[in-house]
């Protein structure tokens, strides 16, 4: 899921400036803005059927945080 998520992230936010890793703080990306935030939430909903509320999302800063949040919601559903 890791590589796939990073690919999706790059595509949605149109990241060209840097390579993304689990440790990347996405909020510091040159391409990051509020539309990017909404797009990531929508992408996570579409691809993983997971709804992140704005209040949860604001506590996540790295790509790894996002993957963990998705995973724990998927596990919670199972």
């Amino acid at each position, binding site marked *: 899921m890791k590589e796939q998520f990073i690919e999706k992230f790059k595509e949605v936010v149109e990241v060209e400036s840097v390579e993304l890793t689990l440790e990347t703080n996405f909020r510091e990306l040159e391409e990051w803005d509020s539309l990017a935030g*909404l797009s990531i939430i*929508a992408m996570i909903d579409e691809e993983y059927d997971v709804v992140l509320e*704005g209040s949860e999302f604001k506590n996540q800063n790295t790509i790894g945080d996002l993957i963990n949040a998705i995973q724990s919601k998927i596990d919670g559903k199972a």
Partner: protein
Amino acid sequence: MTNGIFGLHGKKVLITGASSGLGKAIAIECAKQGAEVILVGRDIDRLNATLSLCEGSNNWTIQQDLTDLNGLSQFVQNLPMLDGAVFCAGIIKRNPIKFINPSTLQNIFDINVFSIVELTRLLVKLKKINNDASLVMISSVGSDHASLGNISYMASKGAINSFIRGLAFELAKNQVRVNAVLPGMIKTNLTKGISDEDLKFEIERYPLGRFGQPEEVAYACIYLLSDASKWVTGTKLVIDGGLTLR
């Protein structure tokens, strides 16, 4: 209680979305003005919680998913004659254009548009609306006032803004009035997805310096349901603390 010109004594009013947020406040306040309210939503426990806060003994609840269009006919057949209805059930989903597809759009339109049109059709067809009745649709200033990611919601409320105009024209011959209320931001279950940070930023845009209270939307509905607005039809009443002044 005296029944002044804004009073709703003797009026039977259907209220959808009465299990939460604005619809709940509308139910409670209408009952305070003497209306007999019929509360509709999917969550029966929350509907009953609203019911317990409504004055009067002729109020009741109906559990109904309004997007179940096939079930609506039976639902309407079981209703008494109505003097008013407030269509408040609705949802929001923030999707940038790249993530809007027929299925996400359908989800929003199912409740925000299709359920309203179908419910209205059945109410008219099965003659459940008294002459002189008043129909109120809860639209939003968001129909015309962009906020990021809200495109499908905006479009659904825009559809309702136009719907009330056509319907008001068609139902005028029966003295039935149709109006919309367009609220700005009011903290409810609907807005819980918005982060505190965004809310702080958002509140700056309100000239009156705060978000609205659910009751403030209810008072607008009371006016539109009451005889005080007998010559008002097809209007879009904005209740937004001045948000759209600029």
